[in-house]
């Protein structure tokens, strides 16, 4: 019971980007995943990538309003990592036998599908931003990601006033939107 409450607290912390909660979940689950990856032809870097991917999935799940975690964090994270890693092994052309593991796993396919879709969207955004070039990229990031005010931004980037910065931002935004929507299918 106590553990359950602790896990709920951790998840809420994770949803709010609380670094302490992230550390806790990280510490409790990482080694297990690392052992799994290392035992299955993976490296330390693979373990980190896969685990962080699983953490993002967990974060997305924790953030969604309909969120109910029906199992322990450990089980969920392990299931996601296992799924992700087996998939990656297959992509690398290593057809590993689907061994029936002794560990308890939960079905995570649906969550992973959503996660993949999001990852694809973010990749489009990333590419669009990347091909935007400076200073547009930094300008938009400052405004939309770091949530800085126009005055601050104009000072930072050296615009004479906020209006000029706003003007520049608008031009950049238009280009970004064009790049983004060129790849992002609205109707989908």
């Amino acid at each position, binding site marked *: 019971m106590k553990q359950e409450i602790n896990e709920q607290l951790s998840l809420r912390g994770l949803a709010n*980007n609380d*670094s302490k909660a*992230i*550390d806790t979940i*990280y*510490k409790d689950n*990482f*080694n297990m995943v*690392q052992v799994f990856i290392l035992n299955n032809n993976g490296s*330390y870097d693979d373990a*980190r990538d896969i685990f*962080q991917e699983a*953490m*993002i999935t967990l*974060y997305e799940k924790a953030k969604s309003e309909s969120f109910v975690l029906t199992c322990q964090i450990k089980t969920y994270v392990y299931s996601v990592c296992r799924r992700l890693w087996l998939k990656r092994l297959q992509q690398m052309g290593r057809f590993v036998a689907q061994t029936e593991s002794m560990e308890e796993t939960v079905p995570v396919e649906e969550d992973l599908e959503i996660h993949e879709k*999001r990852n694809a*969207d*973010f990749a489009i*955004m*990333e590419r669009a931003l990347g091909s935007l070039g400076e200073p547009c990229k930094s300008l938009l990031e400052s405004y*939309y*990601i770091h949530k800085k005010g126009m005055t601050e931004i104009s000072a930072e980037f050296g615009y004479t006033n906020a209006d000029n910065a*706003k*003007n520049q931002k*608008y031009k950049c*935004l238009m280009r970004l*939107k064009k790049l*983004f*929507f060129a790849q*992002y299918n*609205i109707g989908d």
Partner: protein
Amino acid sequence: MEDILLLEAIERYLNGGMLAEEKAYFEQLRKNTPEIDQMVVEHKLFLHQMEGFAEHRNLKNALHESHTRLVEKGDVYEGGEISTKGLVIQLWNRYKRVTAIAASIAGITALMISGLVAYFSPAVSPNQLVQLSHKMDQIIKTQQAQGAKLKDKIPANKVVTTSGTAFLIDGKGYLVTNAHVLQGSGAVVVNNKGTEFNARIINIDKERDLAILKIEDKDFTPLGALPYGIKKTGLDLGEELYTLGYPRDEIVYSMGYLSAVSGFENDSASYQLSLSANPGNSGGPVFNKNGEVVGILSTKQAQAEGVVFAIKAKGIYKMVDELKESDTSVQKIKLPTSSSLKGMNRVEQIKEVEDCVFLVKAYNQK
């Protein structure tokens, strides 16, 4: 310029930064102008994506930071060299005491074992080598297990000192054995069925290493004629011989051949045989293939396998004859001269003979 204002308005509208009045006006505008409505929807989607992207990136950064922190704290291990070294040192520090103790114990044990081996293994000295080259073992067994095994014929306050083998030379109960078997004040004899009889020591001839016992026990029923005779004449080299004796509590058969007509150090009173004999065989009869007693098994050479000496049967005659001159009580002894075993096979011979071969237990005051 219009577009900038419009987009700004849309952003303010989506952020909820509009006042109620302005909002109502803007919504009206959306309704009436499909283009603007389209722009709002599109921008909302874009902003949502942007938002998600931002979150995603922040989380990734947070995870990286978390990872780095945990690696530094040692909660996460990624096979770095320094930490490996640390692990070994840690293990060493933790177990060095145990290792030291284990090493000491191993060392002490090794020293003790080598000490024991040195102590119990025979030390080689020149003196002993000379001895060994000529040493003879008397084939005599010291009885060690007493108590329960000993039956009532041995007086309660007596202890068995030696045991060997004896055989009848007269059906009335006269037995011959080796003098060295009787290292005690009295003796009992046991037949091959395990029955004990009291025996009296009639004579001990240490020079010949022969002794005569007489069974004096009411349980003993005298035999008529003995199945074997005692051979007066000599043997030829290579003649097949066999013996029966009690190296254990049970009668044991062993066979061999005559390997020399004289005994230890050219002793003409004995033969050298090649057969396996063990402590307890002393005093046992040596038969030839006709079932005649040709000797009394007495000693064997130490450090030489299968070199056994037997006193020639002639010695029995000599001893008995000498004894008859001095002791009237032995006048009645009549040594058997003819064997009824000739022509029988070995197994049949043994069946006839084994009743006449006894286990001798000499005892002494406790």
